């Protein structure tokens, strides 16, 4: 009935057109993104932090949910590629006047942009925009509802590859509110596609989504069992709203049983790395000793995020350029 994640995102030649979800993408493409990001990773350390790849292109950050860090990294990535950037904070714009998403899209298209980076509170919003956008426009999903945050997952994979090497031997534990997490879903797809040995989720029953085993993970209800021998520990942010609505009694109890401390990490692999997409809730999902400790790679994740976004943006706009050349 509707095209699968793969055929909407990838053109007939296997090139990335839109980047909406990891679900349905092939391992080779994910490796390609990681390798492309490697080549951009050095750019940020140079004196002139720019490459001219996307000069003359206009990238629109279309953010319907507030975000500082994600939007800033997309903006930095676009500017390092020499693109022009337009930031639309749709929570203060005409959408609050009742303009439909489709009308917002058409208005922006009339301004001749090449790419939308979209963050939206509803799952499927990025797919919707990709389906309805003019053919020359690429769409990057900056996070849609609970569904996907593919660039975050790719920077997490980049981090893992940089610090732990090949995925095949790795035991990865994702700890926290998987049920409401678009980051977790994308990470799970990426880890299983890249061939991680074990992907575990660790959470109380109320935060485990139904049928999650079908995504290729094992489910643990107890932190120590979930962390045993883990090479990579990924922590998810616990939002304050979860303490209402009968899912959790208090952040205090969550920290007791699911908060990661040095003591709890003792059962993990001695060389385990600790990751977190940020922002941190110290004393809820993570203890300060761990956040600031030797195993934490949290700050590196942020810098890798720029390289990954540069990679994805240049690949997507590059595919359109290549396709246009083929047609002419």
């Amino acid at each position, binding site marked *: *009935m*509707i*095209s*699968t*994640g793969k055929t*909407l995102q990838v053109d007939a030649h296997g090139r990335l057109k839109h980047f909406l979800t990891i*679900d349905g993408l092939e391992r080779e493409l994910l490796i390609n993104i990681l390798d492309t990001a490697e080549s951009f990773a050095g750019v940020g350390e140079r004196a002139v932090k720019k490459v001219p790849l996307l000069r003359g292109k206009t990238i629109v950050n279309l953010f319907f949910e507030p975000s500082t860090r994600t939007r800033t990294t997309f903006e930095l990535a676009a500017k390092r590629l020499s693109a022009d950037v337009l930031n639309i904070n749709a929570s203060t714009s005409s959408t609050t006047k009742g303009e*439909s*998403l*489709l009308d917002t899209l058409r208005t922006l298209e009339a301004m001749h942009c090449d790419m939308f980076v979209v963050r*939206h509170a*509803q*799952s*499927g*919003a990025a*797919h*919707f925009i990709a389906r*309805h956008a003019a053919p020359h426009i690429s769409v990057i999903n900056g996070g*849609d*509802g*609970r*569904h*996907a945050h593919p660039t975050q997952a790719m920077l997490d994979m980049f981090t893992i590859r940089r610090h732990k090497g090949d995925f095949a031997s790795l035991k990865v534990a994702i700890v926290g509110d998987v049920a409401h997490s*678009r980051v977790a*879903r994308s990470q799970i797809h990426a880890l299983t596609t890249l061939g991680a040995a074990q992907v575990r989720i660790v959470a109380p029953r109320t935060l485990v*989504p*139904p*049928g*999650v085993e*079908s*995504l290729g993970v094992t489910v643990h209800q107890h932190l120590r069992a979930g962390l045993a021998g883990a090479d990579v520990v990924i922590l998810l942010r616990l939002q304050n709203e979860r303490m209402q609505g009968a899912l959790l009694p208090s952040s205090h109890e969550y920290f007791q049983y699911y908060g990661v401390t040095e003591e709890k990490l003792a059962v993990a692999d001695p060389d385990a790395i600790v990751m977190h997409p940020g922002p941190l809730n110290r004393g809820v999902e993570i203890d300060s000793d761990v956040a600031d400790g030797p195993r934490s790679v949290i700050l590196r994740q942020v810098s890798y995020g720029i390289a990954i976004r540069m990679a994805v943006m240049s690949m997507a706009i590059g595919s359109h350029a290549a396709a246009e050349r083929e047609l002419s």
Partner: protein
Amino acid sequence: MRMRISGARVVDPANGVNEITDVTIFDGRVQSVGKVPDGFDAERVLDASGLVLIPGIVDLRARLREPGAEHKATIASESCAAARGGITTLCCPPDTDPIIDTPAVAELIHQRATASGHARVEVLGALTRNLDGRNIAEMGALKEAGCLGVSNAMQPVSDTEVMRRAMEYAATFGLTVFVNAEDPWLARDRLVHDGAVGTRLGLPGIPEIAESIGVARELLLVEQTGTRTHFCHLSTGPAVDMVRDARSHGLPVSADVAIHQLLLTEADVGSFDGYCHVRPPLRSLDDRARLRAGVRAGVLGSICSDHQPHELDAKLKPFSETEPGISALDSLLALVLGLVYDDELTLPQAVAALTSGPAATLGIDRGTLSAGAAADVCLFDPEEQWVLDDASMQSRGHNTPFKGHTCKGRVRCTLVGGRVVFESQPV
């Protein structure tokens, strides 16, 4: 007028008829099925060889959008589309705007339908005033205005005491209560079936037990009150089992299933296909199999369209912002026949679920070709193939995931009370 329809395969499950034979109609009523009476001088003869003749379809639930949402559709447009689909009686739930909780609204709808002159329209009145789930509606007046039953449409009646009293009051007037059985808290703000697909898409899911708990509560209330109760649009296997057990214990309950639930599953939501956003949601393969078995066993006595036409914009949004519902009048017969061609149902089972079953639930003397019955008739070509698309759809709403589907089976002629309300080409 005296009409003879000759040579059709007549399928009238209410009377156990399934054979090629002749039908005569006189003065708006069926005169005979079988040997033509001696001396019957037909003014019009339809040569129906190769065609199938069934009682006009009785569609238990179709939203006509009038009054209140005429930008989506009107009684005239939808009753016309119905007639073209072989549907001769439509039953409209009370969630119009204004709600059918006063006789005036029921009368308005009846008048508009009569003026339009296509399919007949019956209405269900409100169970509670304004469908608020707190104060019971004036069911006596609604019955007198012609309401065939009462319903709270998709609005919950969370207060069990209110539901009990509403059912008792309905029983006082001999009204059947049509229920949307769903635990409101388990379903609140949720969209799809609670399972692997919902998890993958990051869409909040309604668990199967939301329906089971709703059905269980209502069945216990039926046991207590003895009120005739009909379960609308069941979507889960467990609910079918519960209704089957209740019926075997003699409880006065019936149930229907929407045609899309017999064909689609949660997987069809695919990559956020808003055309598959329905309420209750599309469920698992196992549920679909058990719903089909429920139709075969007669537990689900009716298949309805659950017709919900929408304007284009209602579906042109991210999934959670789309309005639920499928425009289904145009495709009801063809999709049900598809189940026959796939050996899921026999033709008599399918026809019963579209005619005698729903008529019995509504308590009306239709859905049969008994001698003396109103001549509401559907004559269709079982072999004709056609594509469901914007050009072929007659309803004002084109919101269907079946667009592009090749249908097999097309209506050639529809009669209401012996009068031709649709004819694709002179038969």
